[in-house]
């Protein structure tokens, strides 16, 4: 298989996977009755209208087609309150992405850097200390850490301006400052995980023969670092996708609920609390599709970073 065929092959699998996931979710919810029709219309007066608005009485295959069409055209219907979900989702995602991109980048770079740094100094006190930090950082539930940070900031340091002001726009000084605390919690959490993998991966690579050959030829640290990074890049990238992405969303929801940030995580939480099916579906399905696309992008990146993959062998 050459590179082009390989990528087309992976693309087909991505599309099949996305289609399977969407269909699975549709079936699960199509076959379960929506409680909204009883909750919003207790007397039963508007149940027919509620059902008609959501197309519940149409035959299954028609609902399936319109569901798929809705996702493909970003027409996601409305929330229980009547706001368009696509707009709400876009607003919330903007808030989240504002701090998330920076946090993830910082956590990944710092995690890989520190992990590699300590791996090159085996049996040192530093290595042990870093190991301990990454173990403990991983072991504390995010919501406990976030609550702790929140109360230390408010009760002991007396910083009250750190709370997000919902009346003001996102890109105002106050709200950008308010994002620093949740961003910090997310960064530290991801850093601890990335550090763990980066360290063990680096230790693994540093034991290989070609590193010894490099040392024997009197190469400096910079050259060794470059070789380790090049060799570790693929597996660290796949760790990023398989482990970090799953964690990111969990951490997001917790942090945004505790710090009251009107982002993606809070939207999902609100959907669960208000039992708003539209919001829950949009906030869970899109990330799933996004991760699948991300996986495909990762495959493309692999073929560029690591030429061995092109041959088709893993």
């Amino acid at each position, binding site marked *: 298989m050459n590179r082009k065929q390989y990528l087309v092959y992976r693309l087909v*699998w991505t599309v*099949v*996977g996305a289609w*399977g*996931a969407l269909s699975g*979710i549709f079936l*699960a*919810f199509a076959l*379960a*009755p*929506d*409680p909204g029709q*009883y909750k919003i219309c207790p007397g039963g007066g508007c149940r027919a209208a509620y059902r008609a608005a959501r197309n519940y009485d149409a035959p299954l295959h028609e609902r399936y087609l319109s569901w798929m069409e809705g996702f493909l055209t970003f027409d996601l219907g409305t929330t229980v309150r009547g706001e368009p979900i696509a707009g709400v989702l876009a607003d919330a995602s903007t808030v989240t992405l504002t701090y998330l991109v920076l946090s993830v980048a910082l956590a990944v770079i710092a995690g890989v850097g520190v992990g590699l740094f300590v791996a090159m100094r085996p049996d040192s006190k530093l290595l042990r200390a870093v190991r301990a930090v990454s*173990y*403990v950082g*991983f*072991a*504390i*539930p*995010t*919501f*406990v850490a976030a*609550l702790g940070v929140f*109360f230390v900031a408010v*009760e002991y340091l007396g910083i009250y301006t750190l709370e997000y002001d919902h009346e003001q726009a996102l890109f105002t000084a106050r709200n950008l400052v308010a994002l620093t605390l949740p961003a910090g919690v997310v960064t530290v959490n991801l850093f601890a995980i990335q550090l763990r993998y980066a360290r*063990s991966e680096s230790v693994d690579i540093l034991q290989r023969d070609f590193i010894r050959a490099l040392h024997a030829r009197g190469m400096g640290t910079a050259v060794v670092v470059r070789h380790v990074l090049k060799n570790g890049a693929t597996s660290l990238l796949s760790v990023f*996708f*398989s482990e970090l*992405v*799953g964690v990111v*969303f*969990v951490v997001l*929801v*917790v942090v945004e*609920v505790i710090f009251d940030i009107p982002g993606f995580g809070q939207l*999902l*939480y609100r959907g*669960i*609390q208000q*039992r708003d*099916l539209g919001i*829950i*579906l949009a906030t*869970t399905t899109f*990330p*799933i599709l996004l*991760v*699948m696309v*991300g*996986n495909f992008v990762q495959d493309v990146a692999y073929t560029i970073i690591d030429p061995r993959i092109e041959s088709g062998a*893993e």
Partner: protein
Amino acid sequence: MSRPIIANEEVADADGRDSRLARRDWAFLGVLAVLTVLLVADWRGAFRVDYVLFSYDFTGLDWLFVYALAVLAFYFVLPLAIKRRRTAAYWRRLRADRWATASFVVLVAFVLLGLFGPLVFHPDRPVFGEMGPYGVPLTQPPVGFDILWGGPCAGAEIDGRCHGTWQYPLGTTPGGKDVVGMIVAGTRVALEISVICVALLVPLATVVGTTAATYGGRVDEFLMRYVDIQQSIPAFFVIILAQETLGYINKDTGGSLLLVVLVFGFMNWGGIARIVRSEALELQEQSHVHAARIAGMSEFRIVRTHVVPNALSTIFTAVTVQISWLLLLETTLSFLGIGSKVHPSWGYVMTTSARSDFFPTHHWWGVLFPAIVLAVAVVALQILGDALRDVTDPRMK
């Protein structure tokens, strides 16, 4: 590579060691059959075995726990007990690492606490605590602390401040329950979900991983692509969606712990399957496996006697990470209100305390102490997992 197909598997059975393994498999299947019959009998209401034996109504989670214990007993404890020399060698190597030994001791303590602690602390009683006068729950700080509290107080009351008492060393929850007792009850829940998670993850991952490696070609490609897709779906979202669907059917808002474990178990075996597959592929090429194949061992037996034992060390490490995830995820789900509302898990204690009106002036102890216990368990799992990779790896000296 040619793989001779041997019709009569009895050839390999002539070997004494192998037939003992086979007997163990039969015994396990027997236990599984008995369990299934009992479950069906209990479910149809013909014979309430759980009441007769334990005077306690088994939930789906408890049945799975019994199954998981059977898996671990037959395929983890029994081999360790039979192969004493190998076990002793593992133990010697584990002893060389101080931290790993400490973690091992901590985890054994957790297992014992989870198994036998609830016999003392009764987690099956309703999650309502001891009431003070007028039906107001006790709010008791930990020993050495005092709080301003007008309600009932079990300890010394000095200047209107309620002092901690040794009756409730770590204080009480907002429901008035002893935090120590709730931590012990939570240990049982944590043990249940971890053991179930292992008993779902490892067999699934082993079967898929070895199948992919053994048959190769299209089977391998299909299985691995499927694993790819499955791994790109975060279990967190599937749990949310599943809880919602289930909530729609049940029309109540409480989450199901059974569902959390099942989704987690069935969604997260992909990584381990990959590990098993690559180990198996490596082993296929080795001379003793070639020899076994030529001697007429069936593929199934080769996988069982050569591939699985060699992959165990990496499986161990991966499993400790997964258990840690599950325990952390459980607390987070509880906090978000999609965890179980009937199981006294650590997440439940932390959530009810953190969501109390008086948090964090009061009830910080209901968050802090379970969090410490959870952190200790997770750190111990991580250290032991990393150490086990070195200890059980047959390729290490």
